[in-house]
């Protein structure tokens, strides 16, 4: 329990640091969203009219005041308004998040399954002939750009073969191609890690002992090797969250899907600081949470770590 409390405290500090860093960096950018929106030059407003709008939005208040104001807002769950459109940021995130969670979550699961299929498939002795082929897949796939894969899938599977609709699809139909687009490049590094650790674990003395007692290779792989090889893969899956977020930006743009990635892409283009700040904090929060979950899963998978966690030793 103390372990959990300490980890939660660490998470809060990480979030505050992410907020502060993002706040300062975004403020340091040249220009601002109001300038982009009101001065450049679509509305043809006079300098005096622009000054009135700037005053109303309070952009020219001192930085420390803005910082405290924004931080207190965030703490209370109020992320302000998009400067570009005026939509409350909380509403933007609330509408986009379920779409991105569904896409990202399913893609991550699909990537792990795909990686496991490649790794275990290439480690089963009966399929030795497949081994080299399967093991050459990850290095090949890791070099496919997400963007290109998305466009190819849309053009071939949707537009030429007509198997799924991309424009106005059903909820499940709409996930098929984006999930593939996101999961395939993600599965490659996972498969590589998994293959490597299967080899490592298979070379351990205890495996030789189990084998000597008459276990079949498949039994060893499933019961002994897999359980031990999964730990580094889990860590990797946590770290891949960054790739997942980056991939979501591209995937959501290609497929015209609503989501956090689309919001981010639009906000970056317009330097919409309240939106970007909220996205950074949200991304940091999800990083913290996922890695916390991974850390908490460790003791479950490895009893030795559970003992240490009970004693309060860092895992």
């Amino acid at each position, binding site marked *: 329990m103390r372990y959990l409390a300490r980890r939660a405290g660490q998470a809060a500090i990480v979030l505050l640091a992410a907020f502060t860093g993002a706040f300062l960096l975004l403020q340091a950018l040249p220009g601002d969203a109001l300038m982009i929106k009101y001065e450049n030059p679509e509305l043809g407003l006079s300098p005096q009219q622009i000054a009135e709008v700037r*005053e*109303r939005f309070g952009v020219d208040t001192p930085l420390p005041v803005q910082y405290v104001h924004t931080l207190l807002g965030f703490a209370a769950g109020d992320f302000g308004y998009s400067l570009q459109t005026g939509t409350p940021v909380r509403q933007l995130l609330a509408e986009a998040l379920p779409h991105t969670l569904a896409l990202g979550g399913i893609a991550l699961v699909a990537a792990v399954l795909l990686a496991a299929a490649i790794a275990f498939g290439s480690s089963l002795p009966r399929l030795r002939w497949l081994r080299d082929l399967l093991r050459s897949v990850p290095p090949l796939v890791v070099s496919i750009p997400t963007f290109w894969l998305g466009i190819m899938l849309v053009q071939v599977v949707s537009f030429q073969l007509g198997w799924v609709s*991309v424009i106005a699809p059903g909820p499940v139909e709409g996930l098929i191609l984006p999930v593939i687009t996101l999961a395939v490049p993600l599965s490659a590094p996972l498969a590589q890690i998994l293959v490597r650790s299967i080899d490592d674990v298979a070379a351990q003395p205890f495996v030789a002992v189990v084998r000597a007692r008459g276990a079949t290779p498949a039994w060893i792989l499933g019961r002994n090797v897999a359980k031990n090889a999964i730990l580094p893969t889990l860590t990797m899956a946590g770290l891949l969250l960054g790739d997942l977020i980056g991939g979501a930006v591209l995937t959501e743009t290609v497929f*015209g899907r609503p989501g956090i990635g689309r919001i981010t892409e639009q906000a970056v283009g317009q330097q919409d600081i309240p939106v970007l700040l909220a996205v950074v904090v949200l991304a940091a929060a999800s990083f913290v949470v996922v890695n916390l979950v991974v850390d908490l899963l460790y003791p479950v998978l490895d009893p030795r770590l559970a003992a240490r966690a009970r004693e309060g030793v860092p895992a």
Partner: protein
Amino acid sequence: MSATFPTRSAAATAAALALLALTACAPAASDPAASGSGEPVEGGTLVYLEHQAHTTLYPPSAGFYPNGGIVNNVFDRLVWQDPESLELKPWIATDWEVNADATEYTFDLRDDVTFSDGTPLDAEVVAKNFDLFGLGDPERGLTVSEAINNYERSEVVDADTVTFHFTAPSPGFLQATSTNNSGLLSAATLDFTLEQFAPGNSAEVIGSGPFTITDEEIGSAVTLTARDDYDWAPPDRDHQGRAHLDAVQIRVTPEDSVRVGALLSGQADYIRYVEAQDEAQVDAAGFAVYAPQTGGVNNHLSLRPGSEILSDIRVRQALIAGIDRQQVVDTIYTDRYPLATSILSSSAQGYVDTSDALAYDPERAETLLEEAGWVEGAHGIREKDGKQLTLVVNESAPQPRSFEALTLISQQLKTIGVDLQILKADAGSAAEAVRDVEQVQVYHSMVARADLDVIKSQFFSQNRNALLNLDYDDGTIADAQLEELLQAVASEADPAQRIAESQEAQRYLADQAYVVPLFEEPQVYGAAPRVHGVTFESVARPSFYEIWLAD
């Protein structure tokens, strides 16, 4: 949050199924012989793909084209501008009177028009609309309409008569009442703040148009549904009564190849922004390409005279003579992008041909630069007093293929010894740089509006100030004569005289070598063969009102 997701998607599925059912029923209910040609068919949902998401529904700020697909179909206006002849015809206003010096406008209104919330569209609400558009409300973040000058106040004469008063002549006002920026809003909507006009609240924004906004997914989709009781289209339009379509689904699809692919594979019916390089693919498939002109200030480069190098007219003239505009149009664009012959589009009111000042003549360009003291330097770039002839032009993200066009122009200018750098920056840096005459000496832009005022909108110091004639830092005006000419266009009450003023301003811009007009900018749309009745308002925003689907 996770609890609302299944509900939302269930509702979306139900809505999609309902729309599907409507689409499926529509052709069966009508005469099969009618489909394909001639008689419009009622019903069906049009799937329309936008390039970008809409940003606001507050009409004075809604000039951005992605807003136009919504605004032009949801809000009616007082006056209708015929997109062909540019004449102003009755719409919500049946008749109007303007006093001799254009400081008083009186409109007679129809008495049978209602907003989609059931409230009447009467003189009271029209007055309230223009009080907001003409004066703005900074407290609510709502700006004054660029199209309305010198607004003073409104006066409700009776239930269907309203008068507007101006502090000085405002000859552009009548046309302004026909534009998207003057879309009529219900009384309740007029109390909104900027935030309430934002995406996410769109279904609450009420107009009296042929469609109402019934559903929205922020940043990705907007559904428009036809009003059954709509019966106040402009009398001069071919179609009257309710829209043919039942609904329009506007879906944001940023990726160009996906938009075109969706159209050609039948997943979408109608798309905006077919890039020049994709036109051939759409043409070849037998689909329609529409390229209505935006008809205002052409796509052009402004040569800013306030900058050190360009303060010399000979250098500006040399740049114009050194740019092969025809090659730019032929190489980067298609024949749907006609070569510009003035700063104004040839379809704009008051247009005058100034091509004599725009001829491509690289030899003359070199002579002019020599005369101005710019001599051959290192790496083929001219120098004067140890300084290189280096200029910066902004990449204009909203213009089609801006970077490609500027790259070609930069290559052309290199042959006469001019180094043209292209500023490719994030929106913030670009917004700041274009306001500094020594950071961006050459400014790439255009503006669409079908009124003589458009030339003032682009170049006047208090409007877009494209030439940076007003220096924002020290408040000085570089060319006072230009200011006077532009002011005259916007304040002359006599229509014939206004045209003369516009022509003088065009001539002046050409003679002073202030602008390099490139091409007459169209908005390029693609549509499936089953889409009929495609029309546009005067600056190429789509109207869905007359569209019908043939299957």
